[in-house]
């Protein structure tokens, strides 16, 4: 079984895993990092959304082999110690979560969006395809507008 070295939330890790093992299960089952959630396993619901070298990915469909020597950031790696990332803070200010299961993915998708686009339009916010079954989409929009205002 091959060994992969990568950085997860700034920490260097080494894992023995089959090359086709999705990053989600490396994170959850081997590294105990449970912020990224399983929702569908096929990249459709985006509950697991995290970052690879700063770009948005769905770890349930990205094999570990594609992550070798790269930097993975999960929801756990977003805050700076006790200081929340501005997107996390906006989520709290708008009381965005209902059940909260999809929110790590929603937040990571938003962080990726606002990093490259300081003031996303309504149409660009519409393009966030993460599913929220509780339906808190209006608050997600409010939180994005708050953080980019």
């Amino acid at each position: 079984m091959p060994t992969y070295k990568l950085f997860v939330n700034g920490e260097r890790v080494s894992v023995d895993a089959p090359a086709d093992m999705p990053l989600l299960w490396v994170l959850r089952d081997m590294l105990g990092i449970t912020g990224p959630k399983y929702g569908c396993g096929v990249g459709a619901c985006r509950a697991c959304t995290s970052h690879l070298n700063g770009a948005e990915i769905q770890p349930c469909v990205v094999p570990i082999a594609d992550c070798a020597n790269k930097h993975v950031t999960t929801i756990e790696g977003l805050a700076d110690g006790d200081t929340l990332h501005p997107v996390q803070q906006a989520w709290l200010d708008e009381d965005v979560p209902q059940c909260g299961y999809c929110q790590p993915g929603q937040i990571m998708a938003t962080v990726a969006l606002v990093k490259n686009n300081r003031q996303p339009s309504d149409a660009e916010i519409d393009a966030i395809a993460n599913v929220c079954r509780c339906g808190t989409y209006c608050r997600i929009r409010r939180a994005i507008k708050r953080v980019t205002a």
Partner: protein
Amino acid sequence: MTTTETPTSAPAVPGFGRRRFVTFLVAAPTLTVAARLGIDLIADTPALAAGRPTQTSGEATTATNLGTTYVLRVTSDNRIIFESPKADVGQGISTALAMLIAEDLDARLTDVHSELADAANLPGQSVGGSVSIRDAYDPVREMAAQARARLVTAAARRWGVAADTLTTHDTAVHAPDGRSETYGALAADAASITSPDVAATPKPISAHTVIGTPASQQEGRAIVTGAMPFALDVPVAGALPTVVARPPTIYGTVAAIDASVTKAMSGVVAVTTIPTGVAVTARTFHEALRGRDALRVTWGPGPVDDVSDSTVTERLAQAIPPFVNLPLLSNHVDGRFEFAFVNHAPMETNAAIADVRQNSAVVWSSTKVPNSTRRQVAKAIGLSENAVTVHVTRGGGSFGRRLSSEAQIEAAQVSRALGRPVKVMWTRDDDTRHGRMRPASMHRMRITYLAGEMVSFQNLSSAVQLDFGVSPVITGIDPGALGYPSIGSAFFAITQETPYALGVETKALNEVPLKFPTATWRSVYSGHNRAAEELMMDRLASKLRKDPLGLRISLAKDQPAKALLRRLRTESAWGTSLPAGWAQGVGYHEEYNGRAGCVVTIDASDPNAPRVMSALVAADMGVPVNPRGLEAQFMGSVMDGIGTILRAGNHIDSGRVRESSFADFTWPRQRHAPRDFRLVLMPTTGTSIAGAGEIAVPAATAAVASAYGRATGTQPWRFPLNF
């Protein structure tokens, strides 16, 4: 736990949702006050069978183990710990209950911490029917007031002053001379005060500063940092990932299995045949899933292998009798409405961890019915109920899904077979194809009128048989005694009330006994039946050439309904000019002791890709506890309306559910959501407490369908429209 004293209290209002209860001081080193709901009105049979004493208001109570529904504990570090029997699946009940405590304890809301209680076989430990806040409103406030009175008394005795000179705020007692003491510092003394020197009466509504003031969910920070543990996130040492291969058709069976390839695969630990399929346990879920793919299973048929959508429609139509004859010279409006099956589809699939030992078992999962989960797990693995512990974790949504306990039972069965802890995860396709659904339904309706007067309203409905399981909504319903052929028929008759004066009403629902995995879905029959009734109001308005909202106002049965509808008309700028292909739609509903109306504006300029652009909900909740939580519930209800009317449902092809994930079960996303949502709360009345989880679903569902029909000049009748 023993009781030392029982200051009982009287719930003022009898009737559904305001249950009798008793509060009492619990003997403990630190101040602990508990309340339990009376079992006189609750069919929690094991509690009754166990012979626990019935304690009702006004009766003296002997020192015995009463059991508890709610427990409040003040710790020495000045925290208020609340053991909540109400599972939180995102509806925000933990926060709402903490608000009730903060209000009558005069504690800072941030000092009150709700914890989800383990299954304890006591009345009131279930979530459903939008009863949680109605159950809790009186006993929890009373419990907090009892605790406050003891803390004040403890401070008075410590300082040698009269208790009635002291005040409380910010989780502390304050004296006129400036002295103050935190509740935490008084908790040990207060624990032994049996007879407080001040009254222990909850505040009047006019004095509320927490109840009615918007508050954010307590769990927010844990959620946004990824720290909130859902079932599969609980770090149970050695619990191995497990998935289950399931039959291609609903309730199919395992006929034969060849697991040789799977067992030889890297990471695979065990293959276990269980009643629902073949479980593969491995080092990681990836390896378990690969092992599952490599199984060679011969499957036996299920009970609905010969049933497809066309069969369902035919059987539903056959189950509806003809309308009765019309009076001479009368006019009528007819409607036929059909709703497809639809999954609950919570983001967290069915999941549970179980650790079964020789004589005991522990389960971790989200469940709205912890006692039922415990009973079913115990039965499945041959242990006594008392040997099973069920820890309730936060749930990633429910909408009715977490009233059944399939994953918990499977986890226990596999753990028992392997002699080690396992974590069972249903994949999304498992949950879509074998998880529960709202039953498909059909509704035929006729409104008859004569010379401008409403003569009669007939609503003859049918639905595939609904498995209510242990849903608390059916508590106390005996269909036979009430003269109904099934629980579904009885529940329909009891709950489906039309808020308009339409003359003589005839309503009935017949169930079609097809064995599908169904469950109550947020608002049960109201989400489709009442939505269809609202569409009949649109049809009636169209026929009478009247404004649909104006007609509703004129036919509404009572003044509060008219007031809410008028407010909706004003706030929505009803009738405002809109672009071609756009329209407003309206829906209204009364249930759960409350009222909700909804107006949405839809852009259906492309009828195949309609979008609800804005939504307004007006609600009369009696006493709104957390306006911010209510907004969340109603926002979600609007999305349920958009989902079930415009987009998402399940097809049945020869006993198989066609959809498999969020790729083809097309639940709405951000681009389908209104860009603007607004909630208007009617003034607090104080006469009732309304349940919030379901009430806006029928109104919003109706409004979306109504708006689509008005925008496109059609009469929509089969849902979801884009299917």
